[in-house]
């Protein structure tokens, strides 16, 4: 039997065993595992596992069913072995397959036919509606896409932090790290014809809608290659062709605007919805309730998404709202409370909300999420909350780590592959920053462009009108 095994299969089992080892280490010691040691050390240190695994490969008869009933973290080695047993089922058919493609061993990037069912972290809580089920269907491709996209988003926000500190980004910079699952889960449930509008924490939403890293960084640095050609800034990213309508600086203003988008969708009898995002700070705005009243009155397909990161700038939710149950604040409007750090819960909720809104009008989704950074770059974020709280959430609820564990649990990629993806993200972000730095600042004539869509040849003035005048086209 041994002589029929090609070398690559031997190596692949080596790698699998090291990944199992690493998975076990991850499960048992949270995120403190040291990823810096090279693989060969782990190989030698996991020799026992390697031998046992070899035996399993050739003598076990695993079930081909890969579905998990729950994502419980295995606490013992027997559990890890159970995982190994199940995952080796992947290899069993492969070892007898005639195809020698190495890529078959790693179908993650293209396999969207296998269905994996995932349970959300907590059940949904409904207000005036029946919450959807906790079980969410996904595919390996989607899982890997979630991981990749979130890694890119996280990397972009961290890089923006450094750029702000080195004064390449000026003014306001509101970072989204920690909240990526909301953007990712939402995009997975909707199309680019559904509209999204949000407030100023918009960099990752823009990326989720199809914006590029270059457009993002260039806009943050005020360069021509930016999505708003440098004239908007951090708070004013737009992508109209993907139905992303900004990017708004006035807290709460985006909610009536979003209901207006939904009004237009209903007026034109489109089968699309609008996701209007706001924070727990904006949830107390009067215009929100004005717009919600009209949306409910007219059955507009508007979904109000409250990204509750529990702090409105420096004010904790319990100090700002008499009732911080934002999903219930709509009174007659149904609501759903969702774990916003779980991308699959977000995906399920958005799918549910879209179906609801198209039939019954507005619905409120409260995403229970968290931001690691302060409100903006001028807020350290630690004067109104403890560092323990921040690191606690990072350890227990980080959205990227959740996906990472899921990927390992379903054996879709190795530790190294995920690290490579993160490295790739870092690399692409660095390249985008370099490219953005090379993009020039807007031409001085751009001071006067886009004031109007149609200017009638009207005159406009600079600070010294005898010095600088322009004609608006």
């Amino acid at each position, binding site marked *: 039997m041994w002589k029929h095994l090609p070398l690559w299969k031997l190596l692949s089992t080596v790698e699998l065993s090291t990944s199992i080892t690493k998975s076990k280490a991850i499960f048992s010691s949270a995120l403190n595992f040291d990823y810096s040691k090279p693989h060969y050390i782990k190989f030698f240190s996991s020799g026992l596992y390697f031998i046992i695994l070899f035996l399993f490969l050739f003598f076990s008869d695993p079930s081909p069913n890969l579905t998990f009933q729950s994502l419980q973290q295995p606490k013992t080695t027997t559990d890890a072995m159970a995982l190994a047993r199940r995952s080796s089922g992947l290899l069993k058919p492969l070892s007898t397959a005639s195809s020698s493609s190495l890529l078959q061993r790693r179908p993650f990037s293209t396999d969207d036919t296998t269905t994996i069912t995932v349970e959300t972290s907590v059940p949904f809580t409904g207000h005036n509606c029946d919450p959807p089920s906790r079980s969410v269907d996904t595919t390996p491709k989607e899982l890997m896409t979630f991981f990749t996209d979130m890694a890119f988003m996280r990397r972009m926000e961290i890089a923006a932090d450094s750029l702000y500190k080195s004064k390449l980004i000026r003014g306001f910079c509101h970072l989204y790290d920690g909240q990526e699952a909301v953007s990712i889960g939402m995009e997975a449930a909707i199309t680019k014809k559904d*509209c999204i*509008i949000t407030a100023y924490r918009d960099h990752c939403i823009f990326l989720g809608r199809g914006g590029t890293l270059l457009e993002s960084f260039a806009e943050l640095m005020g360069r021509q290659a930016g999505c*708003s*050609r*440098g*004239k*908007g800034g951090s708070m*004013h990213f*737009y*992508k*109209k062709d993907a139905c992303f*309508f*900004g*990017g*708004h*600086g*006035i807290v709460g*203003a985006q*909610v*009536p*605007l*979003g*209901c*207006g*988008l*939904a*009004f*237009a*969708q209903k*007026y*034109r009898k489109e089968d699309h919805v609008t996701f209007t995002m706001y924070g727990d700070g904006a949830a107390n705005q*009067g*215009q929100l*309730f*004005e*717009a919600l*009243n*009209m949306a409910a*009155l*007219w059955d507009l397909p508007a979904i109000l998404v409250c990204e509750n990161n529990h702090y409105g700038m420096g004010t904790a939710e319990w100090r700002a709202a008499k009732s911080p149950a934002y999903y219930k604040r709509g009174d007659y409007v149904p609501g759903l409370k969702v774990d916003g750090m779980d991308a699959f819960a977000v995906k399920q909720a958005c799918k549910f909300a879209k179906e609801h809104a198209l039939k019954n009008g507005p619905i409120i989704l409260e995403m229970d999420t968290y931001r690691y950074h302060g409100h903006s770059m001028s807020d350290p974020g630690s004067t109104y909350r403890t560092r323990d709280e921040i690191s606690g959430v990072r350890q227990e609820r980080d959205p990227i780590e959740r996906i990472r564990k899921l990927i390992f649990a379903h054996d879709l990629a190795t530790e190294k592959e995920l690290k490579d993806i993160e490295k790739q993200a870092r690399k692409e972000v660095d390249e985008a920053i370099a490219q953005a730095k090379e993009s020039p600042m807007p031409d001085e004539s751009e001071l006067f*462009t*886009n*004031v*109007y*869509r*149609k200017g*009638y040849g*009207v*005159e*406009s003035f600079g600070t010294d*009108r*005898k010095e600088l005048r322009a004609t608006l086209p």
Partner: protein
Amino acid sequence: MWGILRQKVGGATCLSPQGVGSHMLRLRPVTSALRNYSSAAKEMTVRDALNSALDEEMAADPNVFVMGEEVGEYQGAYKITKGLLDKYGPERVVDTPITEAGFAGIGVGSAYHGLRPVIEFMTFNFSMQAIDHIINSAAKSNYMSAGQINVPIVFRGPNGPAAGVGAQHSQCYAAWYGSVPGLKVLVPYSSEDARGLLKAAIRDPDPVVFLENELLYGESFPVSAEALDSSFCLPIGKAKIEREGKDITITAFSKMVGYALKAAEILKKEGISAEVINLRSIRPLDRATINVSVRKTNRLLTVEEGFPQHGVGAEICASVVEDSFGYLDAPVERIAGADVPTPYAANLERMAFPQIEDIVRAAKRACYRSGTMVATA
């Protein structure tokens, strides 16, 4: 309470003191009613002009819709939208709750998505509830998005004082909105202005603030056949010389144009020939027309109903001083509303807003005709 107040005002249009003077204008066309039809000028009230403009634009473009308080079943607080609900249905003539911030925002949001809303404020005093959406969400969007998101919306409604409606219902917002880049601000006077400018505003791809005047709604003006055509549009940003003259330029907008014209009649008897400019557009301001006129007459008088400080007249004065200083033979005169919140009592209210004699007096002052000085013109 508002409803009662507004109804009373709407009904009392013809009887208010300010309205009495407008009857004089009607006398001229009445004499020509005995004419034969080929040279007949049709008369139309400003209200009908606005209504017909809305009707035609809604018929021409299915994306145009009207939204506001009482625009539908009530037929319009001032009956401007009368008949539109029956013709176009409740999807296109939308009655809203009394939530200006909400429905102005909804209007702007629908404009983002490509519809062409006409948002009515029952008076522009209530637009202050929604001013964030007019300025931050509508006016600035095209600029902030570098041209991606334009906002083809019209905010319209009565502006400025009516008759006896008190301090909170009498303010003129021309100067406030006129200072915001990204907005266009139009101020019609006659029926032709109302038709042409509203049609132009609805067709315009940018946010337009359309300031009407409640007391003008009931006034009739002659309209040419050209103005009655459904494709009639007036250019935005162009003022109209209502009356040619050579001694002094008087700029005015909205109801004050009527007063300025009457003042010009009085001045003519005293030997002063006044040129009256109907601004029609506060933003963009037609500085070219104003300057050409001042270079001809060498004297300027600006008239407005709004508060004097940082008003429209201040901008026109500064503009003319910058561009045509050498041509001025006298300091620029400004007639504006009094620098006080509007009182209710009839005599005090009369003192709070420009009257024809104020315009005449200021014009004579600019011509060095006031007091005992000998006329030199």
